[in-house]
């Protein structure tokens, strides 16, 4: 109940911000922070609650992005329909990869490597085919209007993303209080012990990767409407995968608000980085790397863990340990 109240307060506090903040820069900043929070929420479902650390969530993000862009450009499909289909397509890709890796029992670093490899394969494919625009990428035509998910004012996307983030928060809250959530966390903690209690780890992890993929895919569809452009490196490159995992790790793995907290913190840091180093390309990734190392060493439960340090455990360290001798 406390979490439900917090979700409500979060939404109500952020809702009027576009009316109060007049600067376009800050509205864009907030919109992007919400976007990464949403992407992080997708990752958190599988990585935070399921303990399956994906290093290639760009696979789902990119599938969603290309799905909506291709359908819109080549078939003239409506953007909202594209958004729904993007989620379905990315969920299907999740089912395919999940079926393969979980069937063969790949865990820890092996799972991370396979997801990374799949994202790379998709990046190369997107670079090759003409209908994906190959290396040039795809430009989505500008058709302002809410019916094409393009908004006249900057506030439109902010509100759309706020609603999506709120829905994802509610979804995560439900997950924490459900049988499926209990099983997913049991599988994260100890697969054999979970099996002895009648939990099927395969179907549990498969469901999680489908849901996580679908949400990440819908984030891809939003990205396309926001920037009206997608290319193989943005869609399937490691940049997006790193953002997706860094956000919940910084905020707090397997917590409802972790990704939201992480996204705002990360983007505040990234912004400071940009102001300090100028626009030197790639430097923010160096900063992200340092940040990840620092978080794993000093704050394995994320910023959220600061509030409840007494909860003496850390998923991260155990996972990296397990990965080392998996």
């Amino acid at each position, binding site marked *: 109940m406390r979490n439900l109240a917090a979700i409500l307060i979060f939404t109500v506090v952020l809702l009027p911000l576009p009316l109060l903040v007049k600067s376009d820069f800050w509205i864009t900043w907030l919109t992007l922070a919400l976007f990464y929070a949403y992407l992080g929420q997708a990752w958190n479902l599988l990585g935070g609650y399921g303990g399956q650390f994906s290093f290639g969530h760009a696979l789902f993000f990119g599938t969603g992005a290309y799905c909506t862009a291709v359908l819109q450009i080549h078939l003239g499909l409506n953007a909202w329909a594209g958004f729904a289909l993007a989620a379905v397509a990315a969920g299907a890709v999740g089912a395919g990869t999940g079926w393969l890796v979980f069937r063969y029992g790949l865990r820890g670093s092996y799972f991370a490597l396979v997801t990374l490899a799949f994202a790379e394969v998709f990046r190369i494919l997107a670079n090759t085919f003409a209908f994906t625009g190959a290396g040039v990428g795809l430009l989505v035509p500008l058709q302002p209007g809410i019916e094409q998910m393009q908004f006249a004012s900057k506030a439109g996307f902010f509100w759309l993303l706020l609603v999506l983030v709120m829905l994802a928060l509610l979804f995560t809250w439900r997950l924490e209080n459900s049988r499926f959530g*209990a099983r997913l966390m049991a599988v994260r903690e100890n697969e*054999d012990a979970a099996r*002895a209690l009648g939990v099927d780890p395969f179907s549990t992890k498969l469901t999680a990767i489908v849901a996580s993929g679908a949400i990440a895919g819908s984030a891809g569809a939003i990205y396309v409407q926001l920037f009206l452009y997608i290319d193989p490196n943005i869609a399937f490159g490691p940049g997006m995968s790193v953002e997706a995992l860094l956000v919940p790790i910084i905020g707090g793995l397997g917590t409802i608000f972790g990704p939201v907290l992480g996204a705002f913190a990360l983007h505040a840091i990234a912004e400071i980085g940009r102001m300090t180093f100028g626009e030197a390309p790639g430097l923010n990734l160096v900063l992200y790397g340092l940040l990840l190392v620092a978080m794993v060493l000093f704050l394995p439960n994320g910023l959220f863990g600061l509030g409840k340090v007494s909860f003496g*455990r850390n998923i991260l360290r155990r996972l990296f340990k397990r990965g080392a001798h998996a």
Partner: protein
Amino acid sequence: MLEVRNLRKRFGGLVATNDVSFVVAAGSISSLIGPNGAGKTTIFAQISGFHQPDGGEITFAGQSLIGLAPERICLLGVTRTFQIVQPFAGLNVRENIAVGAHLHRAGRREALAHAETVAQRVGLASQLDKPAAALTIAGRKRLELAKALATDPKLILLDEVMAGLNPSEIDEIIPVIRGIRDGGVTILLIEHVMRAVMNLSDHAWVLNNGSLIASGTPAQIAADPQVIEAYLGHGAAARMAAQQQEAHHA
């Protein structure tokens, strides 16, 4: 209730289970004992589906368990605990037990309520909100028992739930186990604590080097020369008998 027939399992050159057969009667407490490395846990792993036997048959209530995954076997009503305790370290005690309770209960509230009931039965009621990682070894053994019990099993396989406990903790857990049986759950134990085996079991089997070497009531087992040899080495039974005779004559 549980019938094991001609069970065989080898790991490379090691014969872990050599033609083992036994029957566990419904409503009983039975024990599987034997020296370290005798193959007791391997038999548990085969019954519960974690290892596939190389040959033989395992039936539970008339149904074969061969080839079924652990989660399927659990659904049929056979649950195991682990010798090396396997708590869900990041969850608290209540949530740990609820994972088991969810097997037959879809609702979160129901499962949590059942977890509390089970915790009371094994004496964990005061620790429900503790993280599982913060429990003592005795607490973890009880948690292991509680998680398995929460799945409403018909047969529960307890793998050394008393190892590592001090004598007073053992005295506390013995009535708990008897209480579980009185609640209608059949129990098969692997145990090294002889006091508990003697005290609890209706029947016991002794395993050595993968083969059953004795079967009977605990009292019969304790007097069996083959069993004494298995534990104390070759010729031990004869030496003990000789010593006893000497003591008798003196």
